[in-house]
């Protein structure tokens, strides 16, 4: 009997070892330990055996049953380990599927980056409408009455108003600065706000000149502040755009709506300030004008320049984006060319 059991065990384990699919596990299990299995038959037909025999056969069958279970379990683990969800090999070098292809315009992206930076300094975002009047675009900003920018060669005047003056002569705004007076008239001082927007100049276009382009202006009005605080705004912008601290310098510059006015240069990032073609060999690149608000501008906004002061900076967004990515033609921004726009994720 024991030999018989031994051969059942041997055959059974052999059978288990020959299993190749997980589905076979249960079939073999049934065959070896199920109701109709030889092993169970022996276990249920032990009445003819002696007590001693019963004991030894009983022990043996239990042992065999356990060894089958162990072997099946081991086999199952082995089979699962060797399984794959795929029935054929996978070419992992094929590119992954593409994600949604939409994107914000690179100018918008830049603008939002700057908005975030300025929001952290407590600046509001303001926007003025595209169409303004000579009063707000020039008169309020201390432009001389015969300043050349007022001519139609420079500014897009609206038909039917071009021969009028002041509030009645309307134009596509030539700069954002006029909006500063609108904001201050509506909200008063103190104030700190940025106003991004598009401006328009009647120019001949080429790779560096556009008729419609974007500016980003920031303004602070407060009491008793010094003009050198303007440096902080400049550093904020450049740090945000380029991701690190950028050396800047301020130098003399003239704008009707500032006194004093200054030009802000940043260290040339191409040569690190040593001088190269990009920076015309002087190590610096002009990035933005700025300055202390001219008292006449504050007066236009109904503020007393004896009490209030402040400063502007105005940055050309197109130029900044061009510097950020090395874009070489400003006209691409209005080209609506998706080949270009899809490059900016």
């Amino acid at each position, binding site marked *: 009997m024991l030999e018989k059991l031994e051969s059942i065990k041997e055959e059974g384990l052999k059978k288990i070892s020959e299993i190749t699919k997980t589905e076979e596990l249960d079939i073999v299990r049934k065959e070896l330990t199920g109701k109709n299995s030889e092993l169970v038959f022996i276990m249920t037909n032990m009445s003819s055996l002696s007590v001693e025999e019963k004991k030894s056969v009983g022990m043996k069958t239990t042992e065999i049953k356990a060894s089958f279970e162990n072997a099946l379990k081991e086999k199952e683990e082995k089979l699962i380990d060797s399984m794959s969800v795929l029935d054929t090999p996978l070419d992992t070098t094929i590119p992954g599927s593409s994600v*949604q*292809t*939409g*994107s914000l*315009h690179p100018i918008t992206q830049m603008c*939002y980056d700057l908005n975030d930076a300025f*929001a952290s300094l*407590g*600046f*509001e*975002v303001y926007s003025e*409408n*595209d*169409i*303004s*009047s000579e*009063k*707000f675009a020039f008169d309020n900003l201390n432009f001389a*009455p015969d300043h050349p920018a007022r*001519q*139609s*060669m420079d500014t*897009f*005047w*609206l*038909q*039917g108003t071009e021969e009028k003056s*002041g*509030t009645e002569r*309307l134009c*596509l705004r030539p700069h954002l600065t006029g909006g500063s007076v*609108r904001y201050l*008239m509506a909200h008063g001082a103190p104030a700190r706000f940025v106003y991004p927007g598009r401006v*328009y100049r009647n120019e001949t276009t080429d790779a560096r000149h556009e*008729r419609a382009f974007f500016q980003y202006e920031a303004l*602070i009005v407060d009491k*008793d*502040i*010094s*003009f*050198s*605080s303007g*440096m902080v705004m400049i550093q904020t912008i450049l740090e945000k755009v380029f991701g690190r601290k950028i050396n800047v*310098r*301020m*130098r*003399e510059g*003239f704008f009707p709506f500032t*006194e*004093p*006015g*200054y030009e802000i240069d940043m260290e040339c990032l191409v040569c690190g300030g040593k001088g190269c073609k990009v920076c*015309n060999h002087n190590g610096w690149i002009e990035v933005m004008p700025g300055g202390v608000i001219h*008292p006449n501008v504050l007066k236009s906004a109904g503020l007393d320049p004896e009490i209030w*002061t402040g400063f502007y900076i105005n940055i050309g967004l197109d130029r900044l984006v061009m510097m950020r990515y090395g874009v070489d033609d400003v006209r691409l921004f*209005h080209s*609506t*060319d*998706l080949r270009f*726009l899809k490059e900016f994720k």
Partner: protein
Amino acid sequence: MKVSLNWIKKYIDLPKDKTPKDIAYDLTLRTVEVESIEDTSLKYDKIIVGKILEVKKHPNADTLRICITDIGRENPVQIVCGGSNLYEGELVVVCLPGAKVYWHGEGELVEIKETKMRGESSYGMICASSEVFLDSFFPAKDESEIVDLTNIDCHVGDKISDIVCMNDTVLEIDNKSLTNRPDLWGHYGIARELSAIYDTPLKPLPKLEIDKSLPKYDIKVEDESKCKRYVGVEISNVYVKESPMWLKAALINGGMRPINTLVDITNYVMLAVGQPTHAFDSTHVSGNKIIVRNAYKDEELLLLDNTKVILTEDDLIISDEEGPLALAGIRGGKKDSILDTTTSVVLEVANFTASTIRKSGKRFEEKTDAGIRYEKNLDTEKVTEGLNLALSLFKELYPDSKIVAYGEEYPSATERAKIDVSKEFLNVRLGKEIPEETVTKVLKNLGYDVTVSDGVYHTIAPIWRSTGDVSIKDDVMGDIARLLSFESFEAKPLTIKFEHAVHQDNVLLERRIREYLANRCGFNEIFTYPWIDIKYINAIGIDTSKCVSLATPPAPELKVLRSSLIPGMLEAISKNLRYFNEFKMFEMTEVYEKGEYHESTEEETLPIHKKYLTGALVGKDAKELFYIAKGVIENIGKYTHMESLGFIHEEKPSWADKNAYLNITLNNEKIGELGLLSVKVMNEAKIKRVNVAIFEINSSKFIPFPSRTNTYKSLPILPLVEKDLSIIVDESITWESISKYIKSKVSELIFVEEYKGEKIPIGKKSITLKVKLKSEDKTLTMEEINKVMESLVKTLNKMCGAILREE
């Protein structure tokens, strides 16, 4: 503007340790932007004086000669030359190997090499003036004439740059940085700035004061509002000749061309002090009288180049008794010009107002050097400066000349601006305390008069800054700040007052919308110009009489400003179809229409502005595009946290297909449209082989929620049962009606699919929907579920004749 450092050195001693680069840097930071620095001697590198010892025939060429030439070395060298005026003993210009020349005065610069010419070796080149930047110094009579230096004071081996006074450094200054500074349009002004920057004394200008008891030259200023001062001096015993080297070099490095000494003196004075002057041939001034008057209508002036200018009553002219001589301050006429026969001149030194010059100058494409300076608004005392310098030059260059008559009209003099600046104001605005001595010194170096009392600087601005540039205390502060250098003021951090967080619902909403379209819906953002090609405006039938137009548009077809973003979108679509056949784009910006709108004041009436949001979906399957577009708008409220938008099918937009459009609503107000582009519009806009779904919404109407508006529902305890149901109905039955009939009977109803085609009878369609069922207190049994489904079919059958679709 070009600034010669040699010229500057006549007026100040530049610090020994400052290189031209340092000077350019200091000027750039404090005064004007220096764009480039040029060492003018480099052009003459390796070009020297040589002496021809022997001229021999060239064995292989008739037109060439072999010149044995002494170049100051131990042995003479052999140079082959084709010059027509070669002779033994002649002093000539020799370009040694390595020098750069214009071959025959043309083309690009080429480097001279030791070479063989027709078999004979040639060490360098004997040059004509046009070959080596010497034309102005030694004008040649013909092409083959080489420069003959025999009568010039020079020696073999001398550098040419020394002989023509071109060992100079020239700074090129950006004219834009000078627009507000009339005083800087001459070397003396720049020298004054440098004297203030380096705190070194400014030397006085050479001058010869006039004896005012001379016979009077008759001058009449008719329009005193346009001419504030006019001086005319008649000088005789002069003649046309070439100017000395130093004067020619000064003019060249100052950016002008030497002509003859009479003209050169006037130009030199302008480049020295910024005061334009003019010399008339006095024999051509009829009646010995100069009248400064407005032109008569259609009066003509013949210019030097024989072109005729038709004058207007706005033009200020210099006239004699017969007629116009010159357009004041802008262009001289032909009649009075200096000729080879000129022996006496009337020297004009005058002050014309900026606006007069600007107006008259507009007719010419290029501004003259004089015009540019007058436009900056010169002070009337500069006339004296210019006159005295000019007279001293006449004396120097024409020792025998005689001043025979003098006339002056001086209707109004520039007044110096008086400005008080308190120390307190300076300290606060500059952000630090500047010692009184420093402030006083800086201002005095710039030409201010300064006295101090009771903490106030009483300043009188220099006259050359008093024509508008300096008029208020902020201007004085600006002068102090820039002279001390902006860099010397530390950046002061701003103090932030934490009063409240910046919270701008509309600003944030606009950003969420853009990000929703770009990031969730796969649109690319575009920007179009506000002026749109009329072709696209007409394509969708916009009434242009309501549109705003430009007076001087970039092109005739770009006159009308947009009242809708769709025309621009059509153009963008047709452009991109060259490269793509499936894409999505959006634009969110302003549109305009005629109307009345007051943004800031009642006096100012602006056209009406609205902000529009327009999107286009381009692809093959029109139906699919329509439903995607609808989905984008349906969900926009949810994802951007604003009041949701709805639809009605009521009024067809002009551009839309007759079957596929919707009006977009917000709280029952129509604020936009959605639809497929009609075949007609696509034809007109040249949009081919694709379909386009478009939406346009007046986004100014959007109502942002102040915060995120997600709602939380507790998760169901019992599972929801989902069942699909396919029915067949008449084509005319809408989803809206089906939904209405059964919505209340289920816990959720979802549209799955509409299908027409195989197995579906003509005139019918199949609708597949999904329902979700649940019970509050127990799990639904199969039986209960089937019962609900049966009742749904029954209802639909009764209400709209629906039958169950067989699998």
